[in-house]
């Protein structure tokens, strides 16, 4: 064991052996000549602000349990930074990963990944991993890929993404812009609805925000709409949220729950048992109705086998892990 590795291990053991201590075992002690240069940074939900400033609130909203941050250095090269987030559940690891738009290439690391010139991010199981190169050399890019693969290999099991994904209509979906959330704060970051928590979102709820573009094949895509799904612990909670939303946001809604908003577009909301369905920025009321119908059909397909967490559409049954 090198001195550096020992220091990192001691820091983990002293500060909080679980869960961040476990994360140490997932980080290699060397990759393509890059080696750790200092003790790992260890953070939990309470002190994550010390490390990533404003961004900490995002990961706190996804119930982050612990973070281990390791800086790797190599003579003649800029440093690499590896951040391992233990999010507690695969669903929240998915949420942390999809907080950002994911329009880059997927190099096949973990369950979903994205590599850009100076960064590699992925999620696997309950872990979200963000790797950053402070320069964009070929050597750094290859090292990031090797580092990512080593970490992914060290994560023993995959996990299921949110079951709510099965309620999303797939046609015209902008796959790089699907965002999972629990609370009002995160929803508002992606799509500002209101200062007030109209949808009564909290840690017991889960939601998806997805963007759609419509257009015929071969023609430029036009903006389509924004779909917001929110699932509540029970139908009563959903009904209360829907009621407040309609009171404040769509008081002028017609009998179908739709209204033309001040920008000339259409918004509408429906309730389906414990599920709130909101459609925003649609070109017409027919488009809103169509989205309602598509969500309904997806929900019917999803409901018979839908577990409360974890999406069986996305991973084979034998790959899912029980996170309860």
């Amino acid at each position, binding site marked *: 064991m090198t001195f550096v590795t020992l220091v990192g291990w001691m820091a983990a053991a002293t500060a909080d052996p679980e869960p961040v201590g476990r994360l140490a075992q997932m980080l290699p002690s060397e990759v393509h000549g890059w080696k750790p240069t200092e003790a790992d940074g260890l953070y939990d939900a309470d002190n994550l602000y010390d490390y990533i400033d*404003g961004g900490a*609130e995002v990961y706190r909203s996804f119930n982050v349990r612990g973070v281990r941050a390791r800086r790797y250095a190599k003579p003649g090269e800029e440093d690499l930074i590896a951040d391992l987030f233990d999010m507690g559940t695969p669903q929240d690891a998915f949420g942390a990963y999809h907080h*950002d738009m994911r329009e880059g290439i997927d190099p096949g690391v973990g369950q979903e990944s994205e590599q850009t010139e100076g960064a590699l*991010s992925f999620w696997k199981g309950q872990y979200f991993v963000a790797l*950053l190169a402070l320069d964009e050399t070929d050597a750094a890019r290859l090292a990031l890929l090797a580092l990512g693969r080593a970490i992914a290999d060290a994560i023993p099991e995959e996990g299921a993404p949110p079951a709510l994904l099965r309620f999303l209509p797939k046609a015209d979906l902008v796959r790089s812009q699907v965002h999972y959330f629990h609370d009002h*704060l995160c929803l508002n970051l992606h799509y500002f609805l209101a*200062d007030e928590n109209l949808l009564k979102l909290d840690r017991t709820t889960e939601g998806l925000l997805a963007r759609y573009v419509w257009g015929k094949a071969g023609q430029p895509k036009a903006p389509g709409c924004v779909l917001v799904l929110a699932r509540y612990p029970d139908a009563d909670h959903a009904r209360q949220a829907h009621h407040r939303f309609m*009171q*404040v946001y769509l008081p002028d809604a017609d009998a179908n729950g739709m209204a033309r908003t001040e920008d000339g577009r259409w918004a509408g909301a429906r309730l389906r048992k414990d599920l709130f369905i909101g459609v925003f920025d649609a070109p017409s009321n027919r488009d809103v109705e169509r989205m309602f119908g598509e969500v309904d059909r997806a929900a019917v397909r999803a409901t018979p086998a839908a577990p409360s967490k974890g999406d069986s559409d996305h991973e084979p049954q034998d790959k899912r892990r029980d996170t309860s």
Partner: protein
Amino acid sequence: MSHKTNGVTRRDFLRNAAGATLAGTAGLSAWGQDTSGTKAKVVLVRDAGALDADGAPSAEALQRMLDDAMMDLFGGADPAAPWKGLFNADDTVGIKTNVWRFLRTPKALEAAIKRRLVEAGVPEDRIGLDDPGVRTNPLFQQATALINVRPMHTHHWAGVGSLLKNYITFHDKPYTWHKDACANLAGLWELPSIKGKTRLNVLVMLSPLFHGKGPHHFQKKYTWPYKGLLVGTDPVAVDATGLRILEAKRLGFFGEQQPFAVSPHHIRIAEEKFHLGVANPARIELSKLGWMEDVLI
């Protein structure tokens, strides 16, 4: 019948001119060419030699850029004169810098500012330089004047890290300003430790970050060597000008008007709600000095 809510909704924004902010832009263009009302001057100075091949700032170039900007902003041919007009031996000056690890205010620029302050007669031991510690730093507690200097970059919560945002560490609960993309950041400037004290604003545009991703909201790929400084007395006008440069860069990079992930409407709101300065580009006199290649605005 509609029910009241404490705060605003998206539809409230759409109802007002600020709707443009929610469409994904800063809404700065929504004013059109209305030039009535208060005006502000901003100086953009650029130098091809401001960064070396590795991206390290040149102390010599930064001093020259700062001096040129100050002389253009306040007049005169002597670099020391503007500083003597703004500060004196009785002042205690806090230089509010920014030490974000990925894109900090260059130390060479901090040194250049400090040098000119000392030349203007401010005792060196009454010049504070701080970022996270401003609330407990005695020099900031006693400050009669502030200088606000930071790099511009896109930001998790505020859309952009701006001069307006740079004062958030003066508040004991910074997170309370995060609501609606930090819309009310200009309210910070009402804090007793800040109000009426800022005499100079310098927005560092040497290698701005025009797009951010990931936990740190930083990838070098989304920076570029613009090699500029924006200088002015109106923080809103300087921020609005910096924002226009980022928007222009994003347009070129993405090939289309790509909305900021988080709307930087706090700059516009600083004018509309707080009347702190001028965000409307039509009422900002922009003076451009030095290197003009790919100036973008």
